């Protein structure tokens, strides 16, 4: 035991006084939880209707196709929920959701106008999070920047924190902001959270880009109660001048206006390639 340890313990105890129990707390949590379940059930029901319509359409309109089998991606797990009470209470689901536009070949999706409000290096932005199919990279993309955090790197790939832009913390991963060149970013907190969250406003979901026709999902190996929103190989997300593409060789993000960007894999990171 030393003085600093004692000081921290006593400080935490002193500044976290016990308050009177809140008799309505459980009821409020249950009420929000029920709304979340209703939203989830509504989503499943909507999916079922869509699939049913698709099956009926396939049966009735496609000659020689007696059955239409739709391979649905895994459903986001209910335990991946993160409910913001202030967002959930008193608001109704948006009826005018902005849907992302997707290229004709289904490989590129523009998410410039939707995503979760977040604080970027150049002010507020709408951000979308996505994970690589292996789960190793957690990334974000917005109209002002993009970046990826590697969960694991091969030996020698991760540089000393001396190369980082940030002033404290450890190496997070390569990022590109505005017109600046791509650079390694330091910090104490991860920047990307590519998990399914419940949001009553689909436009403000941090994985607003995701749907079953474009994305994949899988439990996060570190915490299987959380479900990753995965950008499959061969798919690209675009936000303004920024784009990120997932490939088996790694994830790459670029600014088309400047030509700078990065390409990252577990074994190698190339900045401004």
């Amino acid at each position, binding site marked *: 035991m030393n003085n600093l340890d004692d000081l921290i313990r006593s400080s935490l105890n002193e500044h976290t006084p016990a*308050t009177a129990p809140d008799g309505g707390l*459980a009821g409020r949590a249950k009420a929000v939880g029920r709304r979340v379940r209703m939203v989830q059930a509504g989503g499943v029901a909507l999916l079922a209707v869509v699939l049913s319509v698709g099956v009926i359409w396939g049966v009735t309109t496609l000659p020689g196709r007696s059955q239409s089998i739709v391979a649905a991606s895994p459903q986001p797990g209910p335990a991946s929920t993160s409910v913001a009470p202030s967002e959930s209470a008193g608001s109704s689901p948006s009826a005018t959701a902005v849907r992302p536009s997707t290229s004709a070949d289904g490989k590129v999706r523009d998410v410039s106008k939707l995503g979760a409000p977040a604080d970027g290096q150049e002010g507020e932005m709408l951000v979308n999070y996505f994970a690589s199919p292996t789960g190793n990279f957690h990334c974000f993309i917005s109209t002002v920047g993009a970046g990826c955090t590697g969960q694991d790197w091969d030996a020698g790939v991760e540089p000393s924190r001396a190369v980082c832009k940030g002033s404290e913390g450890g190496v997070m991963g390569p990022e590109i902001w505005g017109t600046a060149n791509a650079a390694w970013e330091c910090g104490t907190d991860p920047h990307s959270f590519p998990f399914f969250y419940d949001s009553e406003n689909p436009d403000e979901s941090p994985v607003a880009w995701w749907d079953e026709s474009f994305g994949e999902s899988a439990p996060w190996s570190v915490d299987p109660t959380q479900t990753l929103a995965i950008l499959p190989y061969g798919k690209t997300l675009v936000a303004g001048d920024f784009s990120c593409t997932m490939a088996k060789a790694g994830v790459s993000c670029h600014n088309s206006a400047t030509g700078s960007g990065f390409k990252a894999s577990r074994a190698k990171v190339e900045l401004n390639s």
Partner: protein
Amino acid sequence: MTAPSPTLELAPELDFESFVASHQVRLRRYALALTGNGSDADDLLQTTLVKVYLAWNRMADHEHVVGYARTTMARAYVSAWRRWGSRVSPTEHLPEVTGSRSDADVTSDRDLIWRGLDRLGRRQRAVVVLRYFEDYDLAAIADALGITQGTVKSQLSRALTNLREILGGVES
């Protein structure tokens, strides 16, 4: 006809309410230690309890629900980039600590530590709170936050270095 099972299954909702009634005071203190202010602590506590409620029926063993709630709360806190990330640090201009140390100085040091926690990143703060408020060891902290023990060590080391600097060289 078989006899009714002697095992009494409590109604899930009654169980949840009992859990909240029994643990909400401690969990709110924990939330306050993480967030540093009452309104964010209340938000974090409710977010955590909603998650616990949604997971309640899937839990095979409710003995561990408190640990699940602590882990859920720590991860919700660390993962919330925006909601708990834009607080204004009250530690912009910390008073210097000099001279011999009296009881009043120690009280002042505890205040400095509390305000100094706002200077830490959320992951660093969560590590400090789990270590010194919840008395978790390094392995338990790593498990709770979903990070490696090496990361826990480095985050804790940096956090303590920052807090030492804030104190102006308290003996350690």
